[in-house]
């Protein structure tokens, strides 16, 4: 256990120093991505995170093959059964197989969070890079807009957007995407400011590269690593927000097997059949746990200076 977290340890720790020495001796002529992968492989918690995440991704992709029953087929005679050989995780109040619904829910939760975070990432990247690259009034105007978005707590902002678009999965995607823009924009802007004064940018400017080319070909590739880390952590946050909104009745509607709405209906059977609410909760926690471990691992692998601090 003591080794378990050693790689995500503190600044100046012996583990980090030993790893740095190992890197110097074993990673000659490797590019930064290979070096990142080398660091990542050394980190057991990150590998655990990767395995958990991949397991859910595989479940999401192959859900029709993995599910043992039709996730929406009702069988009232089988209602609220405890886990058994026929139903691994039991059945819900309408006799639907909870395991199959959780597997199908993985597809919904992961695709929903991936889509919303991708929209947030792209929008935030454009705003952040443009803001940091052009500076002056462009930066001032864009960052004040971001300040305003940050002044509204994330979930509340998402709830407000659902209020406008209406209840449902589509509105959840936009709500999460919109509320994740400020985080990506701030991060991209900060890194762009740091990269903008680098010599290779000055050299590219000197040979006549256009601003658009400078941003796309030179700035963006150099700010990608921290954005990858943030994307992983945002995916975890998106799954929590999406399930939270569905739990509140603002997201997925019955009979869609979304984890948050499954948990919400399971609440009514808490005293007699707690498994109806317990298993979807474990699924959410596990996948978010996986993404968080993966994010921490990527932080250490791709951005070791801040990774050691985290």
């Amino acid at each position, binding site marked *: 256990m003591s080794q378990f977290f050693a790689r995500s340890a503190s*600044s100046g720790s012996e583990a980090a120093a030993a790893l740095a020495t190992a890197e110097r001796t074993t990673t000659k002529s490797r590019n930064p991505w290979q070096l990142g992968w080398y660091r990542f492989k050394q980190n057991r918690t990150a590998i655990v995170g990767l395995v958990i995440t991949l397991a859910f991704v595989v479940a999401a992709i192959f859900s029709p093959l993995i599910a043992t029953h039709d996730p929406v087929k009702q069988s009232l005679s089988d209602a609220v059964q405890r886990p058994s050989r026929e139903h691994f995780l039991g059945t819900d109040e309408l006799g639907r197989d909870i395991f199959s619904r959780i597997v199908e829910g993985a597809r919904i939760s992961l695709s929903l969070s991936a889509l919303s975070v991708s929209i947030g990432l792209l929008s935030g990247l454009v705003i952040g890079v443009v803001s940091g690259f052009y500076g002056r009034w462009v930066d001032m105007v864009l960052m004040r807009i971001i300040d305003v978005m940050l002044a509204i707590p994330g979930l509340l902002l998402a709830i407000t957007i659902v209020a406008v678009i209406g209840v449902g999965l589509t509105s959840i995607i936009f709500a999460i995407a919109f509320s994740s823009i400020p985080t990506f924009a701030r991060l991209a802007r900060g890194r762009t400011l740091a990269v903008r004064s680098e010599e290779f940018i000055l050299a590219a400017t000197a040979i006549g590269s256009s601003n658009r080319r400078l941003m796309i070909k030179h700035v963006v590739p150099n700010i990608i690593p921290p954005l990858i880390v943030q994307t992983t952590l945002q995916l975890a946050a998106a799954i929590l927000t999406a399930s939270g909104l569905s739990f509140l009745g603002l997201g997925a509607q019955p009979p869609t097997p979304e984890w948050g709405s499954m948990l919400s209906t399971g609440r009514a059977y808490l005293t007699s059949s707690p498994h109806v609410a317990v298993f979807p909760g474990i699924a959410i926690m596990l996948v978010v746990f996986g993404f968080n471990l993966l994010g921490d691992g990527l932080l250490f692998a791709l951005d070791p200076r801040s990774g050691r601090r985290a």
Partner: protein
Amino acid sequence: MIAYVARRLLSVIPVLLGVSVLVFSVMQLIPGDPAEMVAGENASEEDIANIRRQLGLDRPVHEQYFSFIGNAIKLDFGTSTRSKRPVIDELKQRLPATAELAVASMAFAAVTGLSIGIFAATRPNSIWDNLVMLLAISGVSMPTFWMGIMLILLFPVTLGVLPTSGRGGLEHLVLPALTLGSTSAAIIARQTRSAMLEVMGLDYIRTARAKGLAEGVVIWRHALRNAMITTITILGLQFGFLLGGAAITETVFAWPGVGRLVVDAIKFRDFPVVQATVLVLATMFVIVNLIVDMLYVALDPRIEVG
């Protein structure tokens, strides 16, 4: 100090104005005619036109915004389309419950998070450090509503202690505060540990130890004060998380706060209530972050110079 406070106070005004523009614009995007919603299904064209005039919806958008912001400053947020009561009365009734829950959750999160963070940082890479950090990352990964349901399952259902829902004495506050504060506690613990470990590696800590100071004095008097700068930032940000997260916790525990009010308002398309609640909560969040900035100066006088 006074100049800094004045400058910081002034910087809040554009943000609050921006929030008001955002909230106002978002509500303009809602499909359908608000006058028709207020009038109800059986209203005549004339009734709808009258309501539109009463609500000022027949005026240009910029005039509507200035009217909205002018009324908001006077705490006049209009009438709830659901309860037909002034929105401010609804908020006055619900805000104390949310404030009580947020403060209790924050107190729990701060005390637990700081203690765990310091405990782990003073034993880096030990089995205790790894255990509490594993606990912290689990806390960050746990959905608040599931945490609430599990606490209900454990305490009132299985052990027969503490109430399952509603607002009342201190015993009603325990489970909702634990639920809402647990994620923040985990985040504060992780950040405090990181900040402490970073500070503990600095030269002045080595100097303090070299002078022969007791380890407790080094940690509490020298390391913690610097590490607190990071922790206080997180506390400020977590307050926003608590205000947003209150919607979920209040739903789980049937807590009569503004979080539940806004969720119900969305379901019943009661937009004046949604608009007012978002505006009030965002204002509270901005003010808390303003207070956090003031605390920085108290903790680290160098910030004032910068």
